[in-house]
């Protein structure tokens, strides 16, 4: 096919929503198979393809994302389907990738760019902090930057140095960025589409150990809901999910820690303790209400994250819950996080990562005797 590329329908350009809608419904009729076992990787890949169908200003680029389909295959088939103009490899230069995306977004495009691994996004830090995060503010809202920076993050895959960092705090700390991190296959699809539609820049943190996680998901239905705008106004942004209801204590987790928290809750249930698990979903903006409501109800909380605990997203969550729930708390809020050491070598990561036992120990410490 020879795609015509037009200006983004939402930001910094002229409206071409009608053509976008037409393309979208064509894509939507493609599969209607009902719930199927789907991997997170497939959900993300489908979200990218659907977004590219829906809006010709959506472009995908990065390192090895073209012919190869990305080292994790998240961009698989996009070049074949949409052509080399809309999904392409760049020179190896992360600042270049982000900086060029900024310029493209200024000039009417919606770039979705891939950083190959968490630690390889660091060369782009200046562009992200000084421009991606500040452009809208600096121009008093005249210039919107509808771009998505996808970052595979976190450990648990036996990766060597520089391939397992939990870098979310750097982005969450930077005013002007939104930070999403899905923890279910369905959220992988939903949240990536919402991120691409957003007129704000989104750092989209993908828990890489969950790329091969399978859930039974109806992608056709998710696509239909998204494109009919049924989810508009009740999207995922700023909305945490109760991943498992419970009554005795709240486990607060995001991204790769959510399945660990769920496993801990399952184990606790066998011991007769009912744990509620909250999946934060978007770190920025943070859903204070859902989290606080849960902790007020249970009176006890443990925050779980792979990242180092010091000056982290987990410390921010503890502070916020404490400010809002102090009089409802039966015990100090506990954290189970990575130690304050560089991410360890593969044979040591099991000692570093938050695991079920460490979470259950923390839960046991929540002063149940009083």
């Amino acid at each position: 096919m020879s795609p015509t590329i037009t200006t983004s329908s939402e930001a910094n350009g002229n409206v071409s929503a009608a053509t976008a809608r037409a393309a979208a419904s064509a894509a939507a009729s493609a599969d209607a198979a009902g719930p199927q076992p789907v991997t997170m990787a497939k959900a993300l890949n489908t979200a990218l393809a659907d977004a590219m169908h829906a809006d010709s200003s959506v472009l995908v680029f990065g390192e090895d994302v073209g012919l190869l389909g990305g080292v994790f295959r998240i961009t698989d088939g996009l070049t074949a389907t949409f052509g080399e103009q809309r999904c392409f490899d760049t020179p190896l230069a992360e600042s270049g990738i982000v900086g060029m995306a900024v310029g493209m977004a200024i000039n009417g495009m919606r770039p979705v760019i891939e950083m190959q691994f968490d630690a390889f996004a660091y060369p782009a830090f200046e562009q992200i902090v000084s421009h991606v995060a500040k452009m809208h503010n600096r121009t008093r809202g005249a210039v919107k930057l509808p771009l998505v920076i996808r970052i595979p993050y976190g450990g648990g895959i036996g990766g060597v140095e520089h391939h397992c960092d939990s870098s979310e705090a750097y982005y969450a700390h930077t005013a002007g960025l939104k930070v999403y991190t899905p923890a279910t296959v369905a959220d992988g699809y939903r949240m990536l589409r919402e991120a691409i539609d957003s007129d704000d820049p989104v750092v989209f943190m993908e828990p890489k150990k969950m790329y091969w996680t399978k859930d039974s998901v109806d992608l056709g239905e998710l696509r239909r809901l998204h494109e009919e705008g049924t989810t508009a106004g009740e999207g995922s942004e700023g909305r945490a999910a109760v991943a498992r209801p419970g009554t005795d204590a709240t486990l607060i987790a995001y991204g790769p820690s959510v399945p660990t928290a769920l496993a801990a809750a399952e184990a606790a249930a066998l011991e007769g303790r009912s744990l509620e698990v909250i999946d934060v979903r978007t770190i920025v903006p943070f859903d204070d209400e859902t989290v606080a409501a849960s902790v007020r109800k249970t009176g006890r909380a443990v925050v779980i994250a792979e990242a180092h605990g010091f000056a982290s997203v987990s410390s921010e969550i503890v502070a916020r819950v404490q400010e809002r729930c102090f009089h409802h708390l039966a015990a100090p809020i506990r954290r189970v996080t990575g130690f304050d050491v560089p991410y360890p070598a593969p044979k040591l990561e099991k000692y570093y990562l938050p695991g079920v036992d460490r979470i259950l120990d923390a839960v046991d410490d929540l002063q149940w005797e009083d």
Partner: protein
Amino acid sequence: MTISANHTAPDTARNTGPDNALTEAVKKFGITVEDYMLPARHQIQMVDPEGRLKPEGEQGTQPGHEYPVPGDKELLEAYEQLVVGRRVNDQNSALVRQGRMAVYPSSHGQEACQVAAALCLGDGDWMFPTYRDAVAVMTRGVDPVQVMTIFRGDWHGGYDPLQYKVGIQSTPLTTQLLHAVGVAHAAKLRGEDTVVLAMCGDGATSEGDFHEALNFAAVFHLPVIFFVQNNKYAISVPLAHQSAAPSLAHKAVGYGMAGERVDGNDVVALLAVLDRAVALCRDGSGPLLVEANTYRMQAHTNADDDTRYRESAEVAEWRAKDPVNRMRTYLTGRGILDDDGEARIRAKAEAVAAQLREGLGEDVPVDPQELFRHVFAVQTPQLKEQSAFLADELARDAASDSDSKEAGK
């Protein structure tokens, strides 16, 4: 020497060889690709410091590096902008001394570069300037008072980049070059013939984003002109500490693009070189790198003391090469400029200076709520809370102020 294929064209197989627009351009000039990319042996200079047009054979041109002298109308307009630019530079420096502006990095001495950078572009083209390029931004048509907002200190940028097709003056060195690349790339994908001029200084060429931007522009064959004002210093550090290259223009060949050096105090040569660079970019033979050889006549900013790192004799030497005087002499000698014309241009420059004094003479009331208004396109609940907190704090302050006034009655 082969040039790689256009990687982004879907209908071009990978590595198909040298038949792209650049090679076509080279064929047209009858020289090798290498001779096309390497800067001419001498910098291009058309009018010498004494204001005399140089004989054609001595302008530094050579096959494939030929430049026609721009037309009289363009030159007269450039002179007018030079005079206005000089006046604006000096007016702004005065406003800083009076405390009306926080800082002003003056381009005094570099006005020819400033003016040519703006005048070479068409309405649909884009410019990405640095902190030093306020005069270029104004010459592009942005309201002078809006340009100075960034230096007055009530907001980070005073104009709408989309309206003027001018990026916000960038401070983090060379980061803006990548934005220029992105704007050009987006335009190219849509089949538009936009040209983008991206500006930086000599010291900034050491930054990583300079390298990444030139490489991206060359690999994607984008219509970007990288315009480097070599004013010999990066704050206190002379160029020899930044680069061991034969010239900054020579860096172009390493990326696979053409480079050229030009006398940055000769607006005639600058316009000639930049006009052709724009034309080459417009028909697909970009990107290009143009190095302008100029001098920063004043300190880096008002906060800097340049006597700590350079000799006054050096500054005096460059004063004799002044771009404004040189152009006046040249145009007067050619009969293009007379006393009436000079008086009209001076009056215009004074009017712009008055506009600046007036526009910057008064404090614009700032709105504290603006702190929160533009951080996101879609506001977060946390910022709504913080905005309410500040509103409440201000309301309480106001109430206690009026209470104490009551009590004092």
